[in-house]
């Protein structure tokens, strides 16, 4: 079973995403801040990371940096609110994230993209 790390400070959103991904048969790990995210990246065997950008303690960019450095093979999907600066989006893509999904988003669409990324 493939394992997906979800880093998102809003518990409700992450739970919904978790619910949706479980339906597709994925195992998920939920964490709600940047520091816990970094720990999870270091300790878990992961197939995919879904992360928010604006979060307590460490922002998404730092997490992407960390994941790229320690686990370059794990693809990353960034889930982020609109209205955040373009700079961040660009920076995220420059760091080599696989996909960028702006909020508001459709969980079904997210599930499709997850499936596509994990197949390839």
């Amino acid at each position, binding site marked *: 079973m493939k394992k997906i790390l979800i880093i998102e400070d*809003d*518990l*409700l*959103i992450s*739970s*919904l995403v978790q*619910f*949706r991904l479980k*339906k597709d048969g994925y195992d998920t790990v939920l964490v709600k801040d940047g520091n816990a995210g970094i720990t999870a990246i270091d300790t878990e065997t992961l197939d995919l990371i879904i992360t928010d950008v604006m979060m307590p303690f460490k922002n998404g960019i730092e997490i992407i940096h960390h994941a790229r450095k320690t686990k370059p093979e794990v693809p990353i999907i960034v889930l982020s*609110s609109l209205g955040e600066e373009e700079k961040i989006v660009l920076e995220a893509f420059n760091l080599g994230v696989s996909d960028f999904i702006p*909020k*508001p*988003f*459709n*969980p079904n*669409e997210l599930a499709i993209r997850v499936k596509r990324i994990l197949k390839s």
Partner: protein
Amino acid sequence: MKVKNAVALVSLLFLIIKTDIVLGQDEPVFADSVSFANFLKSQGKIPGLQFRLVDSSKAYILDSALNRSLQSGIVRDFATALRLKDSVLRSYEYDLEIQYLIYSDPNTFKATQEYVSNLLRNGDIEPTVAGDSNGKDLISLASRNKYSPFLKGTYAYFSEIKIFAVSLVILLFFIFAFSMILFMLIFKARRNQKEKLLVLYDEQIVAPLSEILFEKTLEELESLSDEELNGYFPAKQLKKPFYVQVLVERILALNKTMKGDFKLMLKALYKRLDLDKSSLKKLKSSKWDTVVTGLVEVNEMDLTEAIYAVKQHINSPNFYVRSQAVATILTLSDSVDLSFLRDQTFPLSRWQQMNYLRIIKFLHTTRELHIEMLFDSRNQSIRLFGYKLVRVIGRVDLLETLEEKSGSVTEEEKIEIIKTFEYLGVPAHTELINGSLKSENIALVSVAAKAAGAIGDATSAKIICELLNKAPEFRLKMVLLNSLQNLDAAVYNQFINESENPEVMRISMHLSDSLLQDV
């Protein structure tokens, strides 16, 4: 900072310790000789006053030894003298007299009374009451003594009031402070409890929400029976106001982050749970924050049936109610008739403008908006907002209307209109700019000059040169030179070269420094 609560501490401290001071007058201190004798008995030693027993009438033939001992037997307090007198009477049966010595000089009883009275009046001695038998403390005794106060009445009276007032204030303060602290403690406990409940409810809500959202279709959701619904959200819980509040907040938050079908699902669920009714009820609340919460809910969940109720609030004296009501109407109404905005009487703050702008910007892509309506508002801040809208949304088609208006508007409005022209970069309308360049209002001239740099013409350049020759204020000079440079580099260079003004030289260097562009 230095809010010094301890001023209270120390100053209060020193205030009541000092209890009472009585200043006597030349009135008799002792009502009669009996009271004086009683005073002497209880007072003990008095400075300068001594007593001895003498046989002044020579009624008895004293043996010489006793006489000698009496002569030297000076005592310092009256009570002892009395005791001595008694014991002599008992053992020798001599009834001797007490002689009063003031600074070793024998004196009469009357003179002694006068002397002691004086001491008391001057406060050189304080009356002490032996045994304190009546149970009164020093202060009340002092204020009850027979001396009449120096300032008739006020001091004695005041001293009691003072004690009373201070104890009352302290008591009140304590009651107040303790109740405040008690209130805070209760408040904090309740908040902690709420926080715990929030986590609990969050967990309770997540599962049924996910199931409904991912496993049911919209039709299925709408046709859920009450029992089925209560299977997801227990009726018992739905009776708890805080549970409902958390549920509403979560649905609203999800509605913000979700897209497409999910939005419809959430709205259907909201109505199925009758949450829309509670939103409508909030609009009628007397608390402003409840009303705003209701407005936000109406806005987010598209409760169009509430429009009439929302309209009641658009001229509310409360800033937040008013702003949210206007924002709600803007999002909800299909027709987007801006006349209600035009008729607003309160001045529009920038905060409100920012919020309305965001909504209008969004609406603009789907509906036709009659922004020009705002130009006719009687409220200047609304008119100004209208001009800003033209530039932010990019309604070039309205520029003509604006130019027609510009002849008869205030200078503040002219500034905003010129900014709009400059922003949209339409070079046709220079009359307004060139006219404004000649204004007395420096702010207007400065804005016009800046605009002239982008959309001015040859006439503008000419006016700018004229203005520059009148030695304007530094900041304006800089704007003028910058515009001139943009308008006509040749004229600018000529002006710089001819000018000997050191300020002009510095500005020209500034303007040509690449690092300082668009600071």
